[in-house]
């Protein structure tokens, strides 16, 4: 970083989209924080994207609307963007750049941390294997989340992913330990009403006490969205690795983040990749997603649930596609279930938690969890096939066992999947419903569960 921080330059060569090109700059550094001052004395923040040949390209977070070449000056602060952190950030609401939005003063900082974070030493990473209870049956039972995992939710526009995100934020907890738990919630480019819903929802449930909210609304400059997940993760890392808390980070909506990235890339005239997103989209996303994990010898953990709405529900779109390469599974919100009025409308056949196997079973949830989950997965898959068949041959053409599978499909969707937005189910309750579904099948159809568990939990005749 430059040692000559604080110099203000007034030679602005060009303003293009969210970028400002400053001339005759000496000793600026990559990523350095810049304060742009307008003729009216208004201050905006930015960062250096490129330096060289006496020029610096500055990305203005709050946008360049209203800026003119004459009269605008750029002060190079001499440090990268930092987030003030302390335990006091819990219960606070910030904007997308980490400034208080709750009418309270700046938190008294314990530390100032570079928002870009430090890469985790792969050697120091600890394999995630502890269960996080979200209170949402379909996640806890079939797509279990573990501490330190990154498990995205792939949704589509207009679907109930934000309701689900708020419910998880309110209900999530670590069971079987007295360790502190916190939720860092970053809303990226959401509507004002949604941002208000998140805030109110946490406030009214009493969960705000253990949460930190970063709200970047749709009317905030798009460029701010580049910063929001990073400030949120900086706070999460501090709470996890300095204060030993288990932190769940919910980032919604990462599609808005990727679109802001595309906007900057276009303004920089970079060669576009798929659908106009920059070629480094994968690398950029990984700098966010890879900030989840656990470290050897440290008590806390950072777990991530990034939520992204797939344009046209297209799972092959670059954003879900590249996200899927980095994360450890996915939760897919299904349009058909949503249209049927099912909440949460999670399509389990397309969803998967790659780390589930290590986070469930004896000592974590219950010894029969994996087997009963597999059996239900299998049965629901068969129910879908039977439904398709019934669509062709009619119900009358189905065998008795086919009808039982159809029944399983109905019970699964009505009793297991469907859940009220304020219903917090324990893992025992979730497993009990899974057994109720399995018990709809005759015993000879149960092929994935050991006899001893069938004898113990099967409720059928």
């Amino acid at each position, binding site marked *: 970083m430059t040692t000559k921080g*604080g*110099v*203000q330059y007034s030679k602005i060569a060009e303003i293009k989209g969210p970028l400002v090109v400053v001339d005759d700059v000496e000793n600026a550094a990559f990523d350095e924080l810049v304060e742009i001052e307008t003729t009216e004395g208004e201050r905006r923040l930015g960062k250096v994207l490129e330096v060289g040949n006496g020029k610096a390209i500055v990305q203005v977070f709050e946008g360049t609307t209203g800026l003119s070449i004459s009269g605008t*000056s750029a002060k190079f602060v001499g440090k990268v963007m930092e987030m003030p952190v302390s335990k006091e950030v819990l219960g606070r609401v910030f904007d997308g750049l980490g400034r208080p939005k709750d009418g309270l003063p700046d938190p008294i*900082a314990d530390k100032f941390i570079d928002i870009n974070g430090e890469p985790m030493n792969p050697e120091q990473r600890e394999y995630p294997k502890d269960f996080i209870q979200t209170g949402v049956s379909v996640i806890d039972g079939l797509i279990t989340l573990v501490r330190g995992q990154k498990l995205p939710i792939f949704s589509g526009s207009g679907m109930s992913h934000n309701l689900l995100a708020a419910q998880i934020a309110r209900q999530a907890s670590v069971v079987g330990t007295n360790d502190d738990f916190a939720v860092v919630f970053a809303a990226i480019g959401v509507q004002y009403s949604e941002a208000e819903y998140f805030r109110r929802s946490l406030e*009214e449930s*009493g969960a705000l006490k253990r949460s930190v909210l970063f709200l970047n609304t749709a009317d905030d400059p798009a460029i701010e969205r580049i910063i929001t997940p990073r400030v949120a993760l900086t706070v999460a890392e501090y709470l996890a690795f300095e204060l030993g808390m288990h932190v769940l980070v919910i980032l919604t909506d990462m599609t808005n983040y990727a679109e802001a990235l595309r906007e900057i890339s276009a303004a920089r005239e970079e060669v576009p990749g798929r659908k106009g997103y920059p070629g480094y989209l994968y690398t950029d996303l990984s700098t966010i997603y890879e900030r989840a994990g656990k470290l050897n010898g440290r008590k806390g953990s950072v777990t991530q649930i990034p939520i992204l709405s797939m344009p046209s529900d297209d799972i092959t779109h670059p954003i879900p596609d590249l996200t899927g390469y980095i994360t450890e599974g996915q939760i897919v919100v299904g349009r058909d279930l949503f249209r049927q009025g099912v909440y949460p409308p999670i399509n389990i056949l397309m969803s998967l938690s790659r780390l589930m196997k290590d986070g469930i079973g004896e000592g974590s949830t219950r010894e029969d969890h994996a087997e009963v989950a597999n059996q239900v997965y299998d049965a629901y898959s068969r129910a879908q096939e039977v439904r398709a068949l019934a669509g062709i041959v009619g119900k009358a053409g189905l065998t008795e066992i086919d009808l039982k599978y159809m029944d399983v499909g109905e019970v699964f969707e009505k009793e297991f999947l469907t859940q009220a937005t304020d219903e*917090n189910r324990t893992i025992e309750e979730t497993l009990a419903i899974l057994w109720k579904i399995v018990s709809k099948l005759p015993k000879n159809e149960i092929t994935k569960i050991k006899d001893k568990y069938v004898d113990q939990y099967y409720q059928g005749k």
Partner: protein
Amino acid sequence: MGSNSAMEQTIDKIIKKSEKQVVSDLNDAGLNFKQNLDDSITKLESEYDKILSDGKKEADKIEKQIVGGSDIEARNKQLLALEAAVDRVFTTALEQITNTDRNSDYSNLINSLLQESTKILGTTEVKVYTNAKDKNVVQSSLSSFSGSKLSSEIIDCIGGVKIESKDGAMKFDNTIDAKIERLKPLIRKEIASKFGVKE
């Protein structure tokens, strides 16, 4: 008479049969009733447990809402009170700095501020701005910075200097106000710790 006794016998038979039937029905009903009662006890127990557990969940939820809400409210009030106290300390400190004597120590401070600023801009050929109170001190210090010139324009600040390159392209604000602003987060932390706020 004969026909009467036969009739009585028949009636007796019918009564006995009916009586038997009624007793047997009553026994069956009793058994059914017992069975239903036994069944409903289990059902009732599980309903009872469910009501209790739902009630407990609801109570926990409400407790969380009340405790969480009041904790946040109390903490926010504390934060505002602390901030007001920190602001008072700041105001008093700034007043004291403003009223500092412009003695030789202050002259040394201005000299070091000028040195720092010219080093950062990389030239001594600069235009220097200061407030009315510091004008003389700054003017006397400028002799050791060749090519520097004190601007006739007066700026509004507590003390210190603001310098600008000759072409006006580069500026550096080294007033006491700017320095305080830069260090404010650290100073706030120090002041807060004096009030007993721990990290």
